């Protein structure tokens, strides 16, 4: 997030796009609701009728996968009606002319056709967002889980810069990150294309620096993203895989493909707290401590670095992951000797400029939001208040590319997924609380009433959903929360592996799969 969660108290207008915080980020959703209670305006762009959509001043039920066209369309109107922030564009940005030239063709007629949104609503949304005030864009996996995820994120940034909504409290572009420490894992350089602190693997001088600190020759060849590893295994290029705390056998897109690769690999090492589906396929499984059994830090979606504290001992012989890495690394001839998580953090803060001023002592009461360039710096609740990281904000307009797999004769419906409030991922953790199984006993295929009639589906009947990659069976729920032509299901039930259906086509830059949209067909099953 460029801004903070607490900022919502100052926001005059929320543009929620591809995000349903009521289920995915409940305490953030709560703040948005409370802001709306006190009178903040709300635009929701979502194919699904979410709780916030019910309360929105304007709910735009967009056709799934057409967000770039929509965002470009808004900018087209804003330019056409001269609603853009000239001063901000002048002082803070670059390549405005290129933006104008690219946006030109996204006139409301075209955008209406692509997105299915009425021209009137497009105008209304554009005028509301571009008006005076602290206006924040929030987005979630409904934006990024597409082959065009990066294009969408860029388009959101273009829109915010065009209207001068960045760098002010209550505004900004606010991706709501899924996992508790996905922000931190990225900051730490657990990525194939960046070293810790977002140093690109092509930055030779920084490689020199890291080599000096770590006293080792580092590989300068680019790495393979996680989503491509499966193909690489099938091709025999990757032969050993070390999976730490992930369960790709159920969580990745198109899991039949993943499982095939996991069966093929020469050596699979899994380190986890439970014997997950992936761990069951491993050659070695190492028992790890969970969050309550170790010290450390997580970095939240608002870039807040916060302490994780040991409360109880790990069960049996399980160990904190960091100790396992140290022992393994030492055995492989690169000794790692840390006596505590804090000692590792000290190394992190010497390497990462964003973390430079952070110490465990400073995190004792409240976390700090990076960048924290020095020990007396109070942290940064709002990014880009004066300049952007690169200086001027660069407009990077992108053209609309349609989703990979659109409905056709054989697979006439679209399929999309989302999160269940009471559950997390595939429930390896939440599923251990019996009450949660009472709240959310199963997952449903949510079918729009019109589709129900068309395909002869009744409420509660069993259906089989089939994509080009696989099938799953579940019960149907007839609800207008789903858009006509689209079936929605949550992805949190281990018994109903919706990722047998999902599509593993990848974004050309980030290599994110198109989780959120694929084509399916539906069959009604006999009573089970």
């Amino acid at each position: 997030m460029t801004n903070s969660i607490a900022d919502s108290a100052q926001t005059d207008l929320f543009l929620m796009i591809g995000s349903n915080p009521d289920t995915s980020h409940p305490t953030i959703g709560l703040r948005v609701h409370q802001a709306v209670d006190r009178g903040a305006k709300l635009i929701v762009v979502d194919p699904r009728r979410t709780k916030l959509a019910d309360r929105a001043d304007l709910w735009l039920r967009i056709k799934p996968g057409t967000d770039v066209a929509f965002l470009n369309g808004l900018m087209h109107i804003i330019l056409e009606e001269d609603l853009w922030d000239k001063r901000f564009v002048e002082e803070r940005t670059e390549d405005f002319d290129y933006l104008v030239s690219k946006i030109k063709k996204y006139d409301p007629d075209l955008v209406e056709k692509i997105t299915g949104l009425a021209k009137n609503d497009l105008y209304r949304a554009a005028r509301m967002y571009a008006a005076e005030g602290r206006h924040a864009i929030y987005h979630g996996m409904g934006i990024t889980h597409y082959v065009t995820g990066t294009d969408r994120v860029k388009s959101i940034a273009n829109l915010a810069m065009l209207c001068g909504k960045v760098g002010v409290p209550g505004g900004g572009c606010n991706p709501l990150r899924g996992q508790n420490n996905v922000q931190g894992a990225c900051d730490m350089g657990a990525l194939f294309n960046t070293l810790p602190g977002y140093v690109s693997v092509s930055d030779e001088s920084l490689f020199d620096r890291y080599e000096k600190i770590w006293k080792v020759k580092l590989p300068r060849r680019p790495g393979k993203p996680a989503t491509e590893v499966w193909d690489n295994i099938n091709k025999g290029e990757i032969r050993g895989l070390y999976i730490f705390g992930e369960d790709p056998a159920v969580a990745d897109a198109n899991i039949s493909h993943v499982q095939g690769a996991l069966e093929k690999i020469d050596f699979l090492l899994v380190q986890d707290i439970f014997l997950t589906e992936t761990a069951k396929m491993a050659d070695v499984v190492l028992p790890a401590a969970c969050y309550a059994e170790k010290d450390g830090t997580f970095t939240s979606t608002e870039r807040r670095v916060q302490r994780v504290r040991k409360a109880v001992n790990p069960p049996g012989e399980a160990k904190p992951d960091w100790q396992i890495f140290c022992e393994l690394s030492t055995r492989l001839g690169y000794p790692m000797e840390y006596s505590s998580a804090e000692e590792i953090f000290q190394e992190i803060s010497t390497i990462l400029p964003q973390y430079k001023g952070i110490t465990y002592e400073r995190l004792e009461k409240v976390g700090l939001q990076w960048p924290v360039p020095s020990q007396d710096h109070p942290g940064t609740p709002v990014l880009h208040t004066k300049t952007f990281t690169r200086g001027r904000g660069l407009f990077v307009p992108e053209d609309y590319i349609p989703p990979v797999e659109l409905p056709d004769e054989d697979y006439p419906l679209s399929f999309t997924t989302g999160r269940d409030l009471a559950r997390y991922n595939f429930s390896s953790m939440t599923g251990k609380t019996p009450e949660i199984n009472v709240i959310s006993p199963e997952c449903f295929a949510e079918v729009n009433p019109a589709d129900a009639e068309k395909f002869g589906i009744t409420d509660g009947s069993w259906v089989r959903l089939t994509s080009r990659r696989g099938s799953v069976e579940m019960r149907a729920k007839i609800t207008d929360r789903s858009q006509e032509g689209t079936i929605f299901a949550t992805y949190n039930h281990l018994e109903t592996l919706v990722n047998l259906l999902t599509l593993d086509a990848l974004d050309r830059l980030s290599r994110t799969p198109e989780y959120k949209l694929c084509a399916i067909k539906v069959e009604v099953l006999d009573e089970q």
Partner: protein
Amino acid sequence: MKILVNGTPVVAESGMTILEAARSAGHYIPTLCSVDGKNSDKPCGLCCVELVGREGLVLACSTSVEEGMEVVTDSEAVKKSRQEQLTRLAETHFGDCKAPCNLTCPGQINVQGYIAHVAMGEYEEAVRLVMERNPLPFSVGRVCPRFCETRCRRILVDEPVSINHLKRFVADWCLANKVKLKISRESVTGKKIAVIGGGPTGLTAAYYLARRGHDVTIFEAAPELGGMLRYGIPDYKIPRDILDYEINTILSMGIAVKTGLKWGRDFTLEKLTDQGFAAQLITIGAPLDIPLEIQGADLPMVIPSLKFLRDINTGKAGKYGKRAAVIGGSNTAMEVARCLIRQGVDEVTIIHPRPKTEMSANQRTIREAENEGVQFLLMADPVDISQGSHGMNLVLTRMRLGEPDSRGIRLPEPVPGSNIILEVDSVVYALGQMTFAEAAEGGHLEESLELTPKKNLKANPRTALTNLVGVYAAGDATGGPKTVIQSVVAGRRAAENIHSQVMDVERDAGENRFNFSRGRSFDDVDLKNFAGINVKLREKMPERPPEICSQDFDEIKLGFTENMARQEARRCLSCGCSAYDRCDLKRLCLDHGVDPNKTGMGTVPLYTKDLNHPVIAVDLNKCIFCQRCMNSCEYDALQVTATSFDEQDRPVGLQLIFNDKCTNCGKCVDNCSTGALNKKDAIVPIVNEEVRSVRTTCPYCGAGCQLSLKVKGDTLMEVGAEPDLAPNYGALCVKGRFGNKFVQHRDRLTKPLIRTRRGGKLVEASWDEALTLIAHKFADLKAMYGADSLAGFSCARATNEENFLMQKFMRTAIGTNNIDHCARL
């Protein structure tokens, strides 16, 4: 503006209430209803304060500050008014603070708590909870007379819960599953403490002293530890391997042991003091039999019971012939008789001068002895033994009950001329035990130890201190033989007292007697309490039939299966309040000296418990209408209402309704001022155990909510949030507050697993084996196919430190950039 609170200046903003202003300056004003700036429709009245220069009291929660206001928060008038308000609220509060089982247990073990752990399948936690107060769950779980079960409220429905069998089950489960309990020790104190005698009292004391960080040495005269548990109680009750495991668990706290050293012979108290022991605890038990003082008691086959049992338990049993008599009616006598049966004696007769019902032995044990073929010759007393031609002649006189004495007790008296002769091959007598024949021996300190008239050590029952400085005594050595659980209590109390004395710290406050109760005796308990509870008889303990088990020394009772234990634990009615440790009503009553036992409390249930909410249990019998649940809810998801109010403004016809806005977040429960709202999964009451609050970050989504983990010992009990901490300011979702059962879930991985051949099974391995295999595989693949043939996935749910090390590991030790995580998944 400025105001004065108890004479101290406080800066307040205009518009603030007195309560807010005082709180912001750190002045405490109690309240039961104020939350998030809102109060109950019927304010609790606890926040009353006096304003200098004004008549009467005002409510701090609803009075705004004014410039120069002088507030007094603790005057006599204020205190009196608060007492009146608390009395008023307590009069209709209905429930049990503590469960009767807990109140009855001599060890004050949190019985309801460990049963709840069993019901949830958390056996390791159950054992840890038992071991807060009893480090001998294996033994006590086998031999306890079960005081708790006599008061179990389930008796009013059908039968008491089989509490003791559950304790035994969890202990045995930990043994079978090789659980290491990892009980933590406090930091090292540097104090050396000697425990003389390694029986149940000594072991218990050593355990709690070691937990406190002391350097403890047990001195034991016998070759092995255990005392009566090992040398007195036969194998068929406590098998040796079980006892060894139990003792080893205690010793794993880091306790030194010196066996084969007898006090008075091999060392003296003075010598221990010279060796730097800051305190010496004598727990030698009562190892001597009270002698049989009749003619012929010195014949070789007339054996004292403790010698007999020791011989049996150390494999030195002799030949006892075909006929044996056992003199005495104690538990020891019963065990002697049962051992004789197992030694192949055909006729074993217990001789006792009173009726069977007046034997001191447990009736259950008497029945078991009888079932195994032991005979009883009652109302008979030995007078003489002599060697005859066919064994010994044991002369008995018949007894009858005399006239009642002044206390109404009918003592047995001999019937003149009624002598009979019993021909026996051996006689074992169990007439009671004592500590010393004459006095303690060894040195001048020993000789100066004061004894009781019954030749036990004299020690202050509260402090365990003898007449000598630094010398303590506890257990059977001070009061004669008692049950194992009573020895445990004695050992624990002595340990606590020694700790406070050697460290010069206050002793932990004893249990307060404050208790709301649904009825002290069974007659007081309204049967409406049990409406809707179906009869479900207790699980039957599987045991070997007497005719088989009396042939050998193998254990008779086989223990509950896991399924039986879970079923039995679910029979618990959970009488005690699971809000015991957080109840504000109780805390404020205690603070203000209001004792509802004197001032009054609810006596009948007016409302049935509502269990319809998926995560919250509602018991309006405990509701005091503070409305904090409703006023703290961020979703406007519940309403608590009353149809009317009585003359004292207490609610009548309470109703609490959740609407469909409820997100199951549970914040209302955390704000409940009593136990009216409870988390359904928080069924383990925290009674006297020390609780820590650990602040941490939620492991689920990216919002980064701050959590407070409530931790008892090594057990995560509950999750809450602090209202003043960014970013969530006390708000959590259902996952944050309830989704934490996985931490202690038994499916957790506890050992490395390896698959030695493709298609084979994953089997447990040591860390060394697993790491060696991994290092070998990685090195091989790297050598054959290059570093880029290896790839790693890091974890967006793990810490920064771990992600940092994982990528560092892949880039340095392996040498590839094939490192990634699910950032885009």
